[in-house]
């Protein structure tokens, strides 16, 4: 009896899901996804710029200590908010991937148009990181777990680790040693010296200076662990934004209407 009731209820919901609406067709869906891309891309870009901008802009800032500590925290906030919104509203595990893809377009347009063509810095110096692999994996985790708590705890670790792996492989060529002005430096350091940044003197770099106590002689493991911890906090900041600054006001309005 109970199962029959469940089946009837499911059938009603299914009918409602596949119902054709006269005035809400696929054009609305396209317009929504397309226009939201600008807002989401801008929100993610601004958050990244404010908290972790320099680490994302320059190869000589992408270090072993601070890059992995600051950037995962800064960049998980908006994907987390979008995860909540899109799961709550449509049961679509697309929030993090959508944010990362919009951010990809926003950052690359900015780097190419502004930094390469307007002020003439080479792309291999000012290339943006990619968050898409990390976004896909935490969206997949949300789909499988259906739990924001599990996604925050395990997902933050996946986010940090995947972000590191998918961007470190692009950074690897620039960590090759070379001799420049009589000193042994990385190719990234040489880029920073060679391509002059008038108002970003070298001492301003917040990078590893060798004083971090390390685990297995590698500061990045400590940084990854700490970055993961911070990213859990960042995830819940995003959840707060998604729940109380986005979904709750809209649902309240819809109820009134």
């Amino acid at each position, binding site marked *: 009896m109970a199962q029959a009731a469940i089946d009837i209820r499911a059938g009603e919901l*299914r009918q409602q899901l596949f119902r054709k609406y006269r005035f809400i067709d696929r054009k609305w869906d396209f317009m929504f996804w397309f226009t939201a891309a600008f807002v989401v891309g801008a929100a993610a870009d601004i958050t990244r710029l404010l908290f972790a901008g320099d680490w994302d802009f320059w190869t000589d800032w992408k270090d072993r200590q601070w890059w992995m500590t600051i950037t995962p925290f800064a960049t998980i906030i908006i994907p987390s908010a979008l995860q909540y919104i899109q799961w709550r509203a*449509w049961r679509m595990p697309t929030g993090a991937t959508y944010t990362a893809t919009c951010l990809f377009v926003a950052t690359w347009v900015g780097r190419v148009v502004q930094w390469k063509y307007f002020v003439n810095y080479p792309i291999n110096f000012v290339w943006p990181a990619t968050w*898409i692999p990390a976004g896909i994996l935490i969206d997949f985790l949300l789909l499988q777990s259906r739990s924001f708590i599990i996604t925050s705890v395990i997902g933050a670790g996946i986010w940090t680790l995947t972000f590191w792996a998918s961007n470190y492989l692009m950074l690897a060529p620039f960590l090759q040693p070379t001799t420049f002005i009589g000193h042994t430096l990385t190719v990234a350091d040489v880029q920073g010296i060679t391509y002059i940044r008038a108002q970003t003197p070298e001492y301003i770099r917040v990078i590893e200076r060798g004083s971090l106590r390390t685990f297995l002689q590698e500061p990045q493991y400590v940084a990854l662990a700490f970055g993961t911890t911070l990213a859990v906090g960042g995830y819940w900041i995003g959840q707060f934004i998604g729940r109380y600054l986005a979904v709750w006001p809209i649902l309240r309005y819809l109820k009134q209407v």
Partner: protein
Amino acid sequence: MKRRFALSLLGSLVALVAVAIGSTTASAHGERAQESFIRMESVAFWDVKFSSTNVKQGEDLTITGTAKLLETWPNNLSGGNPSVCYFTIVEPGAQFVLKDRMINGAEAPQSIFCHKGGTYDFSMTLTGRSPGNWHVHPAVAVEQAGTIIGPGTSVQVNEAAGGFSYPIKLLNGQTVDLESYGQWLIVGFSLLTFVLGLAWMIVWTWTRPTITRLAVTNQLPLNQDGGDAVGLITRQDHRNTAIIAGATAVLVIVAFTISAFAFPGRIPQQTDWITPPNFEAPASIADASLSSAIWDPSTQVLTMTAQIKNTGKSPVTLTAFRTAYLTFVNPTARSPESGEYQMTATPAGTIDPGQTQTIEIKLPGSVFQQEELLPVGKAQMAVAGVLEITDAGGTRNMDTVEASLTPTAT
């Protein structure tokens, strides 16, 4: 409505034309925007020379000169105690590449440890990179103070056949072009991830409507989707997403492994700061100080009263006054070069050994006003700089001087 729209459009067009006519090319670096006390009291530059002002892409030019962190360093900058400096170039973008940098004869790739009163001979070699006419200044950036700009000039970079490339040799013997090294990996891998992201979004948005799902999801608990019976998320969706997620994980793992083997011997970014050798100061031949600096807006003259004591063994002459990136030359000692200005020093003539002379120095106020260096009405009203004193043998002293600025009217 139409009339209002047309008027708005016309107004916008007029404003646009007015801005376009009124705007000038932004080619300098906003030197005047920096507070006058910072420019005068922090760093003095002298003997700044550009080896060339016309180069081709790939050709070098060297900027040499001397910079001193003055004893009058403001106590509200760097806590009154500058300790880390970076000699750099101010230019509009990456139009040149910096190839070499020496401070007091030592190679200085990155920042240096500096101090108040320190004097630094610098030499920076640039290579022309982008064709165009570029305004270039040497500058000193000081931690917790900012960048203080020295005298600059415009440099023409002409196009070279073959364009610009910048080969560097790695420690493993490989020679790479810094302009494009690693670019294929960055662009290629980034595009691959973008394709995966698009695939994920297409799987979820192409095959089903979005907005109307809200009517159904509103009726379900947050951690439920109703399964295949409802159809919000189907087994096909699980399969497709597992494929994309799996492909993503494999791509990252394989690419990371390949990259780790392709680029072995990696080291972290370096912090290689040096303490440069001490500046070889010339023998002391004079002590100088200012007792007053009076600005008269009616005559547009800045009058400074200096006391100069000859502590050397031969007669000395006041040859110049330098402040910020300006040089005022005593014409009785030498003629001003291009970019320099003239001052008058009364009495003219030399100061004998052991004598102390009071000299009245008159400077053209129009230059100070143009460069916004007269801090009338600001919180720190003072004038500072270095007096250049030279003896018959060519020995020069650069004595730091400072006096409170007294305007005759505000």
